[in-house]
């Protein structure tokens, strides 16, 4: 076996530790920070591996480093190295030199982008309007999302396919990804635009995180009145809301009002407040949770419908909340209004 000779052109401290240890144990290891010096060394001897810092790319191309190294040894491996600093630490990347030059002088882009937002990643790939696959490795899972003309048409992860797989991947907090253009989906399992898909998934995630969101939306649809706003309050905090904005101090005062009256009439189950512009009604769901609705209409009819709907949805919601973590809520138990 012959001698193994390595030439590094670039700042030595930018080589990852493991690579430095590897190459520094070569039979011959030369390192230089300048292209001129690198050229000189290339002309002096044959190298088996040439590592060029990618920040020296233009100088390397200008001085035909690749051609000179190949002329000296046709079997030489030439790679560009890049150490990327990111919020999660540094990562080293190594590219075949001929491919880097090919990409750099052609009408396409290739690279690495860090994002902390999965949805931005999806939108970014979708915006290209290309047919491509996006592979994401996260934790113990690897998922693939396929795009056709910019729309998501298929997703697969852990044996799950379609929207369910896509939803699973949306919940991932991080991972490494790569996009491969021209990859055709093995099948089509998703048939909606990227915007409506994202909207649907976000809505599902929000509902999963907060079951009262769905609950209050259903209530609002059922009530026979012009609803201004509706909220669910748990332990004094608004946990779900629909309609116009409402200041949280209102909740504090309503709670104070109900608590104060409780001294005389026991735990308040229901309060109807009439004011000039609309009615505000509050009904208790559990000991620490109540629903409040502001509306214009007949308060007695609204109250009747509200009470009926609380019987229908309120008890399961309260039981689920008390027995499960928000991420494990079985939404199927909510019956959609007919």
């Amino acid at each position, binding site marked *: 076996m012959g001698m193994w000779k390595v030439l590094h052109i670039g700042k030595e401290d930018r080589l990852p530790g493991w690579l430095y240890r590897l190459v520094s144990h070569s039979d011959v290891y030369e390192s230089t920070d300048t292209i001129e010096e690198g050229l000189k060394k290339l002309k002096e001897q044959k190298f088996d591996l040439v590592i060029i810092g990618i920040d020296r790319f233009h100088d390397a191309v200008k001085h035909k480093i690749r051609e000179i190294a190949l002329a000296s040894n046709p079997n030489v491996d030439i790679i560009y190295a890049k150490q990327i600093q990111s919020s999660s630490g540094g990562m080293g990347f190594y590219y075949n030199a001929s491919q880097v030059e090919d990409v750099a002088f052609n009408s396409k882009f290739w690279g690495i982008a860090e994002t902390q937002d999965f949805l931005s990643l999806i939108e970014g790939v979708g915006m290209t309007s290309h047919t491509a696959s996006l592979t994401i490795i996260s934790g113990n899972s690897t998922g693939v999302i396929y795009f056709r003309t910019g729309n998501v048409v298929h997703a697969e992860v852990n044996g799950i396919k379609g929207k369910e797989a896509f939803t699973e991947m949306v919940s991932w907090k991080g991972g490494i990804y790569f996009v491969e253009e021209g990859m055709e989906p093995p099948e089509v399992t998703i048939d909606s635009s990227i915007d409506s898909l994202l909207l649907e998934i976000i809505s599902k995630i929000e509902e999963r995180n907060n079951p009262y969101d769905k609950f209050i939306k259903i209530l609002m649809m059922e009530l026979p009145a012009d609803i201004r706003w509706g909220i669910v309050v748990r332990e004094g905090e608004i946990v779900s809301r629909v309609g116009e904005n409402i200041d949280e101090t209102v909740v504090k005062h309503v709670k104070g*009002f109900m608590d*104060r*009256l409780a*001294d005389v*009439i*026991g735990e308040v189950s*229901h309060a109807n407040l*009439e004011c000039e512009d609309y009615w*505000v009604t509050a009904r208790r769901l559990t000991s620490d949770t109540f629903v409040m609705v502001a509306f214009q209409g007949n308060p007695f009819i609204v109250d009747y419908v509200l009470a009926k709907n609380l019987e229908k949805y309120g008890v399961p919601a309260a039981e689920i909340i008390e027995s499960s973590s928000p991420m494990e809520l079985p939404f199927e138990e909510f019956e959609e209004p007919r």
Partner: protein
Amino acid sequence: MPTLEEKVEQIVDTLGTLRDVRGVAIANTDGFVIASKFFASDISDEKFAGMVSESVSYYKRIMDEVGAGRVKSAIVEGENGKIALIVVGDFIVIILGGPDLNLGLARSTLQEAAKDLE
């Protein structure tokens, strides 16, 4: 022409005839009780007056925050009783009832009785 004091007494008496009424009070919007009548021995005058005063204060704050305009009325149900109140000018008329108090009737009687205060 009856005096304000006589009107108040008359309203309290009228409201007191409703079924399962345990107390009636008329307070000003600052929460000071002007007149009251109790039919339940388990609630003290002071406790009811304090409740009226504080709840009026909360009620006003709610309406200020919600920005829904002038306060008109409220009905509240608890596990042991019910409350109906109406705001007329500078007065708040409050009925405290037991579980059998008909809130719809209480509200309409309040509205009728309160006309004399306008």
